[in-house]
């Protein structure tokens, strides 16, 4: 098991943000963290990435505490993509993507021809070849998101931690990025944990879901078992249910409460 969390509790400024969270991720699996704002999704990802120290319990990478691992070794195993990232300086797209090779090449040695080939490949897969000399501060939100995806591809980790990877993308690029993630999972046997707002995308792409509410696990398992009307009501306070869309895939529909009120 590459990644696991055992009774993980996380706090921020002395307040518990996540309590007693358990997870173990098999290879070739996409696990989606779903839940309302402030339910602890981002914090869990940061703990799995080793960026924060657990208050109690453990976040393990190959059986060792994530926050205690050698940072470069950890970065070769785990790629973390934040929901938002700012660029202090106008580095070019390819300069930023090249940093994905730093865990392999170190901070001093020049990049090799092999690194450049990997970077080029990552740029191509994220549909960024035409933008590679563009300064990153001149990109749209969606383009920048794809730069972050390309950087983590160049990093070639065994597990991906994605924080709302589709939040700033249009529907075309949402599907493109998530298709890419799914392809990588199939090709390289990656494990993926992603926080994802959009329940329709979550049921469509994730093998398993963990529903969170107020930092606690409400339910975990196959998407259709997790997103029951009761669970959705508990977590989000809406009346919603899964149905088969015209292509036979699961989709989520929310009852329009306003309309209901108007009619009554």
């Amino acid at each position, binding site marked *: 098991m590459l990644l696991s969390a055992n009774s993980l509790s996380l706090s921020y400024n002395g307040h518990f943000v996540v309590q007693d969270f358990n997870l173990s991720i098999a290879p070739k699996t996409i696990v989606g963290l779903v839940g309302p704002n402030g339910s602890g999704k981002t914090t869990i990802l*940061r703990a799995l990435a080793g960026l924060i120290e657990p208050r109690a319990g453990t976040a393990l990478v190959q059986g060792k505490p994530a926050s205690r691992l050698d940072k470069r070794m950890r970065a070769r195993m785990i790629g973390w993509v934040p929901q938002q990232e700012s660029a202090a*300086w106008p*580095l070019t797209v390819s300069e930023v993507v090249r940093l994905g090779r730093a865990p392999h090449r170190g901070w001093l040695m020049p990049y090799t021809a092999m690194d450049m080939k990997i970077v080029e490949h990552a740029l191509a897969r994220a549909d960024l070849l035409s933008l590679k000399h563009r300064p990153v501060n001149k990109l749209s939100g969606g383009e920048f998101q794809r730069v972050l995806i390309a950087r983590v591809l160049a990093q070639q980790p065994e597990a991906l931690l994605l924080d709302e990877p589709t939040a700033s993308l249009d529907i075309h690029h949402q599907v493109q990025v998530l298709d890419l993630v799914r392809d990588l999972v199939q090709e390289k046997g990656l494990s993926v944990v992603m926080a994802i707002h959009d329940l329709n995308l979550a049921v469509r792409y994730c093998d398993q879901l963990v529903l969170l509410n107020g930092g606690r696990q409400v339910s975990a398992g196959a998407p259709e078992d997790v997103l029951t009307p009761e669970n959705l009501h508990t977590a989000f306070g809406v009346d919603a249910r899964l149905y088969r869309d015209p292509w036979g895939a699961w989709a989520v529909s929310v009852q329009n409460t306003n309309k209901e009120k108007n009619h009554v």
Partner: protein
Amino acid sequence: MTRTRWIFIGLIAILIVSSILSLGMGAVSISPSETLAALSGHPVKTSHLTILWDFRVARILLVILCGSALASAGAAFQGLFRNPLADPYIVGASGGAALGATLAVVIGKSGPTLPIGAAGFLGAMAAVMLVYAIAEVSNFGSVVALLLAGAALSTMLSAIVSLLLIMSEEALHEVFAWLMGGFSGRSWSHLTQSTVAAVLGIVIIWPMSRALDALSAGESSAEALGLDLRRARLLIVIGASLSTAAAVSASGIIGFVGLIAPHLARRLIGAGHAVVIPASMLIGSILLLFADDLARTLMAPLELPVGVFTALLGGPFFLFLLRNGQKEL
């Protein structure tokens, strides 16, 4: 890549030409051809040879050294703080240097004599280490803490300097002249003193280029890319402080060079620190040479403090940056 190469060739050419012109300037003016002849060992007037070798060559080299040191420290601090308004003095280096120098002068009046430059160096390093220690134990635990601690300590140190100066009036002039920054009367001994620290600082800073690039994305992202934040921060602060202290001990406090040079470098050559740092050093040297030329010649034979000119040129530039916001930087 070729564009980058041409920019470096151009900057080096400008630096060489302005060095030769600067060597000829001063109370006794020497033509560029005579300067070149003297430098290449051809016979020239003995008095000119003495002026060049005993005074001006060392001075010009020291100007270049200080310009490079301040510019590299500026690029490093801007990268570390992710802030285009950071400068080499931001973590308290200038406040510490001023206090060190003032103490040396005040103590020198009644006790053992201490060289002002060395005292400034020690003061700068002590202040930076104190700021760093405070930032490390603070709750922020980040560059914000460094910035705040630097600002707080600088204000305190300058208050102590004012107090010392008020209490011992006769020391005022000497300290004041030193604080304004300048290369008047500097020679080979100053150069040899400062070279080691400046070169050491630059040798620490430049290899941090990739780490500084990663920090552009923020501390969490840099850490997720495998950067050991504490270690990187410590190395950058040590390297940049050594460079700053080397410049301060040789020439007093010269503002704005370390602020402006990295900006010009980024405009010219892009944002990757591996090229920004050496380009900043070249630009910093050229700017400081110009400022020193003005300081020496404008009211000759009187020499003005070079810090006055860098501030006169740098102040408006700084305001221009503020007015245009950060989006264009």
